[in-house]
């Protein structure tokens, strides 16, 4: 029986796509759907994958590397979260399978598992610190740093993309909780 994993993505029904609803505000924005892959492999295989993906993965812990429309986030020594355009889902998958061939690795499509939010503005770090126990000073959490962490009772991936801009990846069913929590905190900065 044939391998069942090479599923091409059909894009003609994108109007049927319903992501978790997020109310946009001056500090919070939902990010567009993306293709997401969890790539697990030994470091040398990850480097090989980086060549095919077009982003050399960070060797430094907790750092994201961005190249064009794609990003690779270091989540653990053998784990990268790959982000790309939604339209590239099938090609990313095919390219990586082709490049990695018989190497030992795991590539799993998690595009719909999580949603992405952007927290921005001068109070972004303070709002996050209402629920995140991390030290978000620029010295301790510089631009380009990313980590899996807790936002009170939700698991998130937190990635500082700019001085005062944070990218959050959250499992879709926790989106309401995370945005609700951050919104309550953000009210403290409304004049």
């Amino acid at each position, binding site marked *: 029986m044939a391998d*069942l994993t090479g599923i091409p993505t*059909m894009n003609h029904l994108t109007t049927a796509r319903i992501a978790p609803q997020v109310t946009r505000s001056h500090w919070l924005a939902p990010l567009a759907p993306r293709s997401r892959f969890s790539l697990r492999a030994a470091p040398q295989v990850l480097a090989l994958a980086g060549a095919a993906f077009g982003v050399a993965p960070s060797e430094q812990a907790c750092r994201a590397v961005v190249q064009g429309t794609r990003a690779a986030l270091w989540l653990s020594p053998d784990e990268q979260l790959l982000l790309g355009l939604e339209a590239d889902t099938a090609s990313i998958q095919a390219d990586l399978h082709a490049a990695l061939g018989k190497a030992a690795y795991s590539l799993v499509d998690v595009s719909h598992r999580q949603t992405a939010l952007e927290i921005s503005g001068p109070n972004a770090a303070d709002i996050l610190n209402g629920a995140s*126990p991390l030290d978000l000073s620029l010295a301790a959490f510089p631009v380009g740093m990313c980590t899996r962490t807790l936002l009170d009772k939700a698991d998130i991936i937190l990635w500082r993309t700019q001085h005062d801009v944070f990218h959050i990846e959250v499992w879709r069913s926790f989106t309401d*909780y995370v945005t609700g929590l951050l919104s309550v905190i953000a009210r403290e900065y409304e004049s």
Partner: protein
Amino acid sequence: MTQFRAAKGGRIDRSSAIEFEFDGQTYKAHPGDTLASALLANGVHLVGRSFKYHRPRGLLAAGAEEPNALVGVWRDSARYTPNLRATTVEIYPGLKAESQNRSPSLKFDRAGINGLFSRFIGAGFYYKTFMWPKTAWKSLYEPTIREAAGLGRAPTQADPDRYSNRHAHCDVLVVGAGAAGLSAARAAAAAGARVILCDEQAEMGGSLLSDVHTRINGLTASAWVASVLQELKANPRVTLLARTTAFGYFPHNHLGLNEKLTEHVAAPKPDQPRERLWQVRAAEVVLAMGAIERPLVFPGNDLPGILLADAARTYLQRYGVKVGSVVAVVTAHDSAYQTALDLHAAGVKIAVIADTRAEVSGDLAAQAWAAGIRIQHNSTVIGTRGKLRVTGIDLGQVSGSNVQPLESIACDTIIMSGGWTPSVHLHSQSRGKLVWDESLSAYIPGQTAERTRSVGSCRGIFGIAASLADGTKTGAEAAGTTSSITYEVEETRLANTGFIGALPQPGGKPGDKAFVDWQNDVTTKDLALAMREGFESVEHVKRYTTNGMATDQGKTSNMNALAFLAAGLDKPIPAVGLTTFRMPYTPVTFGSFAGYSRGELFDPVRRTAIHDWAQAQGAVFEDVGAWKRARYFPRGNEDMHAAVDRECVAVRQNCGIFDASTLGKIEVVGPDAATFLERLYVNSWANLKVGQSRYGILCREDGFVYDDGIIARLAEDRFHVTTTTGGAARVYAFMEDYLQTEWSDLSVWLTSISEQYSVIALQGPAARRVLEPLVTGVDVSAQALPHMGVVSGFICGIPMRLFRVSFTGELGFEINVPSDYGRAVWEAIYASGQPHGIVPYGTESMHVLRAEKGYIIVGQETDGTMTPDDVGLSWAIGKTKPDFVGKRSLARSSMHAKDRKQLVGLRTQDPKLVLEEGAQIVDSPGQKAPMRLIGHVTSSYHSAVLGHSIALAVVRGGRARVGQTLYVPMPTGDIPVIVTSTVFYDSEGAKLHG
């Protein structure tokens, strides 16, 4: 202005007068007053009744250590806070406060009669008095205790306010902003450190705010405070937190700070949080908590009008309030002389300074002498006069061990000083050791357990110059450097003396009503009684007498109790030991701890992609873990039973659609994926072909069923594993644990895909006809896709993983589509099913349908003590496998005992009777308790399809009992039941394979 408001001085705003209410009466105050200073300014000393004896009590202190003046403060009916210290309540216009523990009024309190019976309610009274007769418990003792217990009244409405939370990090956290804390923060900030400085009071500065004599670098103490605060405020790396109490010291320099944001505001904005909980992780901590003045213990020392000397000075110099007109001073320390001189200068008559010491030297004594104030050496107090306010003091003269009455002196106020006790609370909370300093007669911080340092008077360094130097040196040290900052200080030097224990009394007896712990009404007699009854350990005495307990945590009482015990036991003080200081330092509201976790945000509420559709259809939801799952879909006036009956019949006859998205899903990928599952699950996986799935059982090491689910092989090296909804997270963790700690040799990785896919279960004889028109790229015929087959394809153009599986016993499919498409695909299937009578069904019908087939639910049929064989699943175990988790445990002989509880079916004689889930089972009727219980009902439903009730149960040796009659004893009598097979419906499985 009243006669008690000083003509000048204080940090209050005299240009503005505000009104507040206490016990229904309106008084005037100035901005900057506390409730305590405002009451004193109005001549009000009587502010509360004591906890146990309901004795009239006044203000003892001016700060957070106040044990007596506990008041209720409210803004409206939903905002009532009991047990606030009047000394820390800031006045705002319209503030409403009331005294507590009195009925009907402070001046006449019915329970004050407790004082008459006080010899019956001494130490440990509740252990002794209410022993007998037994019948008096319900009618007398319990109601009486309930009436007397507790302090203040709890608010009855939900808290309408919001509470904030912040996590923060810093290089140096400084607790306390007096001389030592300010200089420490300044030195650390000068070194470039990230500094947080917090102080519990409205204004930073500590004792410097009531010090009008000391000069620092040529400035008055308060001007110096202002200049330092200005400097720190201008530093972006410094955070200043006033009104912020560091209440708890947690491991790894994690401190809890409670910031009061709106308690002092007359009309807080409705959106403004009331308090903020700061959770600070500090690289280094500097504790500058200061010292608390010790009261003196003598008979009648708790009358209103008797207070600590330093409190009297604070009231005068910080709040411009004179504590009385004629003041008697009792002291063992020089600092009370300064207070006496300040009061004298403000026009208050000082009747006497009764000094416990034999001789006093130094500037202050000389100044007092020069001012014509009478000083009496070798003094003691043998009694006080007055009922609701002190009217006189009875002095005694000490010579050797002999005490002679000396003289009775009229006064309306007594101020006292037993010296100073370093505040070691947070150091102690951080598990730091305390050492006894003989020269100070005090416990001071010793060995630390955290990166923490104590500075100033909280470590026994007294005096402004010494505190500034100590703070500077230590603050810089905490920031990893040294400091060249120095201060020029002009201050009066004080001798470090003091008195601990009870003042000597005639005949060496403790005397009456000599209070050690004001808040908990503990006297020297109580402590003496405890010792007579054999309580020698300080921890036992504390609990027996309640000394140092409750919100007060012994701030004013610990040392005196300790010294009294030591004297009574004839031991040195350090040999008596010390009780542990507990967090919180001062009480913290529940709201502050709850923070944002209330209402919708109490816990995450997880909803599937199909949730909104189900809600629009009127589904009733139930909580399964954090998920909301549709339980049933009532139509018209249907109740749950009617809806479930209809849904079940529809699934059996036509077709039902069910949202199974909450199932846990894990993608197991890698060359060793099959080996990994082989070792983990009881089943064989190596022989599972690509495109097939199998029902898997996961046991724990003890051999008991832990989870179950369908596992599909998508490729040689790729499996799609499903788990129970509730088990998703723990099964994933269980797998990771094994992978990382036991089998790190395996090349396999786990990825949670629970939320990647919406799972739509389509079940019933018409399922294929509903599905067929929607799919492309797959053949869903019985030949191409048999039961347990798995295939990839498209539905409505959306990629899907299609499982032919069934949890109902009907022909069934589970359609996995990427979650954002879940709703669209669901609606497409629902539309396609309309001609076939499709109905949405919920978890309740799912439970009935699976029970009709005898399918178990882990956690319902299993309880952590059931083996696969117990629940009839031994067929699933891979018999030839060398090992799997739990195999060794399952080989134990007890796991094969014939009388183990085994899963069976039960039928009642009355087809309408539905057994109670959890009901016990016995093998003969009419048993008397204790009965011999042989099992219990695990699942029980009415089956509309079968026309009778069905039940699953676990019964000892159950499979050998099929056909027997057993009994379910209920309050209404024994219900006879017949043991049956677990499969009630379609036992040949014809429908399943259709």
